[in-house]
């Protein structure tokens, strides 16, 4: 190919959110007709780069060039006008409208006053075939399709808009292997037609099947761009991690004894299967899995939000089957939800309210009247223990930073000294300082005898606090690592390049 300006070039991009430097001086060059993978750990800056490209955020410094000419992307409209289309994991579709309507909302093909259905539909059928979807989907309301199909409709939507740059954000997370193949076929056809594809994924092994080059990000910087042929999974993992060894951790003594929580052959149709986990009192076990691995569904079953369809759960040797969070709590299992804003916080209520939610029976007189003095002292005590930065317990939780809010939701789980504490993504959206503190709290909890199960997609975190680390991949527990695991080992295992793993 003759030397020509890259389809898209970002140079010197920096972006901060308040005191947090999300990206510093990042650079990336995307060529037309190529698949350019973007990899990095959680928090490395990938999604911020994408948000800048799609116009959701604006960079603080730096330039963006499209086909060699500098452009400004001040909003989503600008990005769309340039031909930059983004497909997210959550498809932004209208569930009651048909696939055909969804694809063309806002740019319907019209003839006179009415929509030219025949013509529009023909285009839709073309796109559907391109994606390997049956033509009859055109008239099916999108809400009736599987999530995977909905994602493909999202892709079709961006194609209908004559995308020149297609950004795919973790597209394979929710797809089966067969669907991934179809996705790759589509991507290849697109690049053959000159579309530049930016492919973000945690699944490093996939990159070798589809990407032409890889840009690695770490700590907000673009470390480098490499042709895929120069790399292997291990090398990518090393670049992502920076060859930094995990911190030295004092070796913790785990008291012997029977496990408090046992998951034995646990499964839930379509989500996970044959999960085997044991957690002893005073032990921190981490389930490390990427999005779509089934790891968060496992936590939901332990807590009674969902019910498993096979296998069993044992608490101190006794089989349990909680059918609601209330029942799980009565069994002594507490859970810190993954999505703080949606599942954890009572936004405009006070810290005290948030801490005592769900424990009102305990903090009441006669089970009826709230014992405010007790509530206050419990809240103050937990605020001190968890080092929550707040002038008093009456402050609304919505005014707090992510880290502090997370501590408050965590405090709620500790009110009744649970036997088993499950923590789902405990430091997501939390700044570095609070992260350290939360990890310290978790370790202290274990030392005081709680059985701790951490479910996370944050690898450094898992390595820092876990006594044992289990990799969850493809809906089941696979390899187990001890406290001496390195990031690179685990990352490679999770990405599927483990020697023991039969592909």
């Amino acid at each position: 190919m003759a030397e020509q300006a890259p389809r898209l070039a970002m140079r010197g991009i920096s972006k901060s959110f308040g005191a947090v430097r999300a990206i510093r001086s990042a650079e990336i060059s995307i060529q037309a007709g190529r698949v350019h993978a973007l990899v990095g750990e959680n928090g490395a800056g990938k999604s911020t780069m994408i948000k800048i490209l799609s116009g959701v955020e604006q960079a603080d410094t730096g330039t963006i060039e499209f086909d060699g000419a500098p452009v400004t992307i001040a909003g989503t409209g600008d990005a769309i006008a340039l031909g930059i289309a983004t497909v997210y994991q959550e498809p932004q579709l209208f569930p009651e409208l048909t696939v055909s309507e969804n694809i063309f909302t806002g740019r319907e093909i019209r003839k006179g006053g009415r929509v030219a259905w025949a013509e529009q539909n023909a285009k839709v059928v073309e796109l559907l075939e391109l994606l390997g979807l049956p033509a009859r989907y055109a008239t099916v309301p999108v809400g009736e399709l599987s999530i995977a199909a909905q994602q493909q409709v999202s892709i079709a939507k961006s194609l209908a808009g004559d995308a020149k740059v297609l950004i795919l954000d973790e597209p394979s997370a929710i797809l089966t292997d067969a669907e991934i193949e179809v996705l790759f076929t589509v991507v290849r056809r697109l690049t053959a037609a000159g579309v530049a594809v930016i492919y973000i994924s945690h699944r490093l092994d996939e990159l070798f099947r589809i990407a032409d080059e890889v840009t690695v990000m770490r700590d907000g910087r673009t470390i480098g761009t490499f042709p895929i042929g120069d790399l292997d999974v291990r090398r990518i993992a090393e670049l992502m991690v920076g060859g930094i060894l995990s911190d030295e951790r004092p070796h913790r003594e785990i008291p012997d004894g029977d496990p408090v929580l046992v998951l034995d052959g646990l499964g839930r149709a379509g989500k996970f299967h044959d999960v085997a986990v044991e957690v002893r009192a005073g032990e921190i076990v981490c389930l490390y899995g990427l999005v779509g691995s089934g790891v968060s569904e496992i936590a939901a079953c332990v807590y009674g939000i969902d019910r498993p369809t096979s296998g069993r759960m044992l608490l101190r040797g006794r089989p349990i089957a909680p059918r609601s969070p209330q029942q799980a709590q009565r069994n002594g299992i507490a859970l810190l939800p993954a999505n703080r804003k949606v599942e954890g916080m009572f936004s405009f209520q006070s810290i005290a309210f948030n801490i005592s939610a769900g424990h009102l029976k305990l903090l009441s007189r006669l089970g009826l009247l709230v014992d405010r003095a007790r509530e206050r002292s419990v809240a103050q005590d937990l605020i001190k223990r968890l080092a929550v930065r707040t002038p008093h317990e009456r402050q609304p939780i919505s005014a707090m930073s992510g880290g502090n809010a997370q501590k408050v939701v965590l405090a709620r789980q500790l009110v009744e000294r649970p036997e088993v504490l499950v923590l789902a993504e405990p430091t997501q959206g939390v700044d570095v300082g609070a992260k350290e503190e939360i990890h310290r709290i978790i370790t202290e909890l274990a030392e005081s005898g709680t059985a701790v199960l951490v479910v996370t997609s944050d690898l450094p975190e898992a390595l820092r606090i876990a006594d044992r680390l289990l990799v969850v991949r493809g809906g089941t527990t696979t390899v187990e690592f001890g406290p001496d695991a390195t990031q690179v080992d685990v990352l490679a295992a999770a990405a599927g390049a483990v020697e023991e793993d039969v592909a």
Partner: protein
Amino acid sequence: MTTTSAPPTKTPDDTTQEGLGARALRVLLTQRIALLAVLIVVVVVWFFVLDAGGYLTASYNFDYMSASLINAVPLAMLGLAELLVILSGRGGIDLSVGAIVSLSGMVFGFAYGEWGWPLWLAIVVTALSGALLGAVNGFLVAYVGFPALIATLATFYAYKSLAIVINDQSPISTPPIQQLFSITRSVELPLFGQYVPDVPLGLFTFLLPTVVVVWVLLARTTYGRRLYGIGTNDVAARWAGLPVRGTRFKAYTYAGLISGFVAVVTVAQFASARPDAGVSGNGMALPAITIAVLGGVAITGGIGRVAGVVLATLLIVWLNAGILLAFVGNEGSQYQLLALGAVLVFAALLNGLTTRRYGGTT
């Protein structure tokens, strides 16, 4: 989806540069209680001024204000009923309160007026009938998953027609019922009664207990906390182990219970159990919802206080009382509608503005 650290939320406590005026404005807009108190004073002073200038058909004085409080009883009680339901979130609302008042009123009419039951028993049965009718709403909304607007619309129709059919469209005005009117009279307050205008008895026998009970329920009991919890975020409530459906169900049941008591008051006020008591004209539900919204209740749930509803009632009742004196004949009642509508739109726009600028009201 990959994530980075979320941007830290802005704290609204940046009062360093605020002048006194801006600060006062902010307080007024975000603290609904403060705004209502100010408005009450403004309205009352305004009418006193008009009275002094001779513009009113009768005297707007403390006696008159006190006597007009009889209207506050059903209005505030239903406003509290709506408060409970709207607080429960998920589009909580109750269009059927007026119809419950009608139907329970007929129950009371039968029990006390026709079958000669003792008053206390008739009242208890009436209240329970209201609770049962409210429980139907609660069941449809909390357990079956009906949108509240639809469920209570349906029960509005059903209860309204049952109330009329149950006694062949005729009211019950037997002697015991007629004598009940005496309970709506005004009484002199004990101790300092001679210095202060007489107050309608219903205020003490019905309104005050309801206000106290609802206040205690919301501010002090575990149930109240759960109600605020599910109204604020019922997904988080589920994850926290709160009984979401049961709490929501009870909110509608309690609203029905309160409506049952209002039925007794209404029967006494009209000295007759009328089958269209709660649904004539525009019904009782609309003013009740207006009071709740004016009182600072967020239509999305989780925000609202008893004090707000009470102050909003006082504002509307005294405003209406003044309007009645400011206009001759029928005009007065019409201008009351204007006032109600204008106030509601104003309050709603204010809510919207406040949420945008300051992040919400308390």
